[in-house]
């Protein structure tokens, strides 16, 4: 098998374990790059971007959980209050999203990229959660545990406040099960279809009873918990939420499922062969160490295979471009921020708004005609805001964006453009940049 050059490997490491190279990153060697992205426990540059405050939901508008609808028509005051509260919620979500995009842009380790991956894996949307503070808390949990043990993360997510709200966990009580969280936890988070039965879903729902949503956090109420004996996934006992998570994680299918999901997003659309899976499983280990798994993925021959290309997700593409152009979302004017968020929405991917609990699609789903229009518009908008004084020709843009090189097709397309902003915008839409080759 031919391998890509070391510089291309470095670029891939930056693309796959980060959000693309920052200026200068491609001059480092592969080993040094692995040490930078997967070595440190914390990311000082990203940590310096302080999380937003004042995300508490608007007072007195959110109905208490379980309250039955009141009869009677809504007064105009009710409507105005609701409108104002929705506006406030939208402003909080926007603040949160810009903060996270900022963090992604300045991040120097794989921690932020993996936080993004876990967000898509445990896909929770603020569309239903409607509480930016809870979304932030979930996001911080995912960040803290991003490169640690998968079991810790899964156990944290099954009782996470935003997750419980998203999948109706607070509605699941003894004697009146709600299966939403139980089913998706096995199907999408830990095991995959085919590795559990319908009976397991019903029993798992019993394990997840007892959780309610208080004003600021999900809490466990023993009297709502079904403490009876449950039989699921081949075991019998008085399992609770964490017990259920443990049972799922102990299933033989769990490791392969998580490895497959990470591989598909970080390495290649072609699944790993059996020998590769065996090597990766061994690195992942009984403790399910995510960082060790990623180290092993980076060392796989497939990581250097020219065929292991991936279409960048819209957020990865936009953050990579912002980084290359030295633009920080929080420092853009408000109007420009609005356009950035509208552009991401138009391409089909807005942070904190996964399309469904199944997360976002991949590959050719991002290469639609409508996404193409938005991509060009956003690239133009960002290029106009950047300092492009060093950009004169296609080679300068390749260096700026960290592209390995242009094809003859793209060289010829770029040759007709003189204006640096236009040159950069078109280059950012070239197949060589839209795809992490």
């Amino acid at each position: 098998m031919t391998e890509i050059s070391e510089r291309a490997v470095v670029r891939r490491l930056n693309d796959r374990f980060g959000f693309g190279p920052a200026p200068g990153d491609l001059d480092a060697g592969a080993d040094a790059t692995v040490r930078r992205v997967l070595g440190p426990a914390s990311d000082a540059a990203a940590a310096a971007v302080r999380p937003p405050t004042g995300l508490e939901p608007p007072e007195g508008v959110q109905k208490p959980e379980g309250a039955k609808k009141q009869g009677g028509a809504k007064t105009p005051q009710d409507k105005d209050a609701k409108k104002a509260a929705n506006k406030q919620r939208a402003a909080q979500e926007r603040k949160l999203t810009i903060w996270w995009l900022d963090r992604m842009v300045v991040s120097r380790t794989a921690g932020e990229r993996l936080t993004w991956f876990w967000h898509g894996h445990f896909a929770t949307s603020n569309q239903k959660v409607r509480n930016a503070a809870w979304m932030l808390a979930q996001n911080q949990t995912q960040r803290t545990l991003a490169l640690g043990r998968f079991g810790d993360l899964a156990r944290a997510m099954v009782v996470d406040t935003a997750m419980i709200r998203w999948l109706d966990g607070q509605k699941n009580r003894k004697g009146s099960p709600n299966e939403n969280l139980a089913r998706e936890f096995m199907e999408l988070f830990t095991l995959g279809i085919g590795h559990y039965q319908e009976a397991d879903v019903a029993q798992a729902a019993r394990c997840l009873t007892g959780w309610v949503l208080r004003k600021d956090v999900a809490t466990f109420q023993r009297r709502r918990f079904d403490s009876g004996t449950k039989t699921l996934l081949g075991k019998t006992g008085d399992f609770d939420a964490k017990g259920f998570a443990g049972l799922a994680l102990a299933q033989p299918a769990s490791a392969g499922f998580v490895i497959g999901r990470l591989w598909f997003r970080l390495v290649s659309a072609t699944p790993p062969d059996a020998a590769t899976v065996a090597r990766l499983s061994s690195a992942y280990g009984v403790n399910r160490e995510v960082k060790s798994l990623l180290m092993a993925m980076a060392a796989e021959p497939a990581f250097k295979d020219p065929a292991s290309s991936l279409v960048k997700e819209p957020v990865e593409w936009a953050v990579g471009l912002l980084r290359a152009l030295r633009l920080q979302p929080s420092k853009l004017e408000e109007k420009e921020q609005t356009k950035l968020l509208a552009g991401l929405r138009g391409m089909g991917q807005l942070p904190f708004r996964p399309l469904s609990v199944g997360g976002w699609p991949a590959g050719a789903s991002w290469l639609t005609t409508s996404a193409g229009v938005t991509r060009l518009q956003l690239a133009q908008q960002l290029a106009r805001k950047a300092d492009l004084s060093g950009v004169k020709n296609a080679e300068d843009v390749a260096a700026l964006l960290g592209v390995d090189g242009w094809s003859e097709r793209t060289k010829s397309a770029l040759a007709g453009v003189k204006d640096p902003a236009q040159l950069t915008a078109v280059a950012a839409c070239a197949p060589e940049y839209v795809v992490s080759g």
Partner: protein
Amino acid sequence: MDNLTRRRFLTLSGVTAAGALAAGATQVNWSDLMAAAVDDPLPSDQSVLVVITLYGGNDGLNTVVPAADPAYQKARPDLAYQQNEVLDLGDGLGLNPGMKGLKGLWDDKRLAIVRGVGYPEPDRSHFRSMAIWQTASPKSPIPTGWLGRWLDATGADPLRAVSVESTLPPLLAGETTAAASLPLRGLSLLDGALGTAYAALGKPSPGEGHWQARAAKSVLDLQNATQVLGKAVKSGHEQEDEDDEERTKGASAGGTSQLGAQLELIAGLIEAGVPTRAYSASLGGFDTHADERGTQQRLLTELDGALTPFAQRLQKTDRGKNAVVLVYSEFGRRVQANGSDGTDHGTAGPVFLLGEKVSGGFYGNQPSLTDLSNGDLKAGTDFRDVYATVLQHVLGADPAQILAGHQTTIDGLLRA
């Protein structure tokens, strides 16, 4: 890696939709076909299919409501509609009170309801079941959608099918061709050096990798789609998702809102005579595990509010009169309500067809509420019967070729 392993992997990874799209290789001369389409718009006697996907598993029992059935009232006491609340359809069934416009179409004999539609050994995963409906392959996963295969079989022209969503649904992905997708505010690209340079990115480049070639082809497709569709589409028609407490309760299983805007765009395209035979639109939010009644009625009202003016508008033009609308969801909900005034994932549900060519009325049998399979409805009609009917009578295709030999159609449902 062999195909079976690959498919299994993609399925187990929960990425079936992406897998369906990843599998195809595109080597068609799109430009030639498009140029022909500009010169030769869709003949006004050709029929058009509009498929509307309801994401999240719409509760069929609270859509076409067996309000007179004591077993229904008993199974969901706080969720059930009373007989005097629903819009009477006869046969002891009534439409959800949110569907007043569709009741009008029913009275005009332009709405058909196929009852108890599903497939054997139903899967209760949103993603697997939706993949089954979209690929029309109940037994084993395959990487192409049923309309994608129709595209493959009829000349591999992506503009013959159009999605009005930002991501492409798997039903429109074929082995060699994927449908075009169109943003609600229309397509317009820039002129001048920038436009020329961007267009030039669409040329294939020798030796480039699979995904880069696909990216280049998407630029080419965009150029061609813009030439044809750009003129037909009004600009500035984009609204934000309405942030509404009722609709957000069932949001976890995906799908977009703005169905009205999607259908308005489709109506414009049909009237403009673009050479598209199949359209796809969607509405999400039907994953109603809690507080279902208000949420679902709100969504069905939105569906009704989008479909009714669409059907009325289509009736006014010759091209519109040849359009048939198909509405489905990946499964219905369980008969018994859960403890949170919602329902968990179930099986069979009703499928709606409407339009001038539709012979209104009921088709298929209403599933029994007492003869259940593990608490779930038994399907009486295979969803592929519905597909075979529209493939044959709307798209003029041989169903067996596209549905792996399945060719049973539903008699009398559509007029020739």
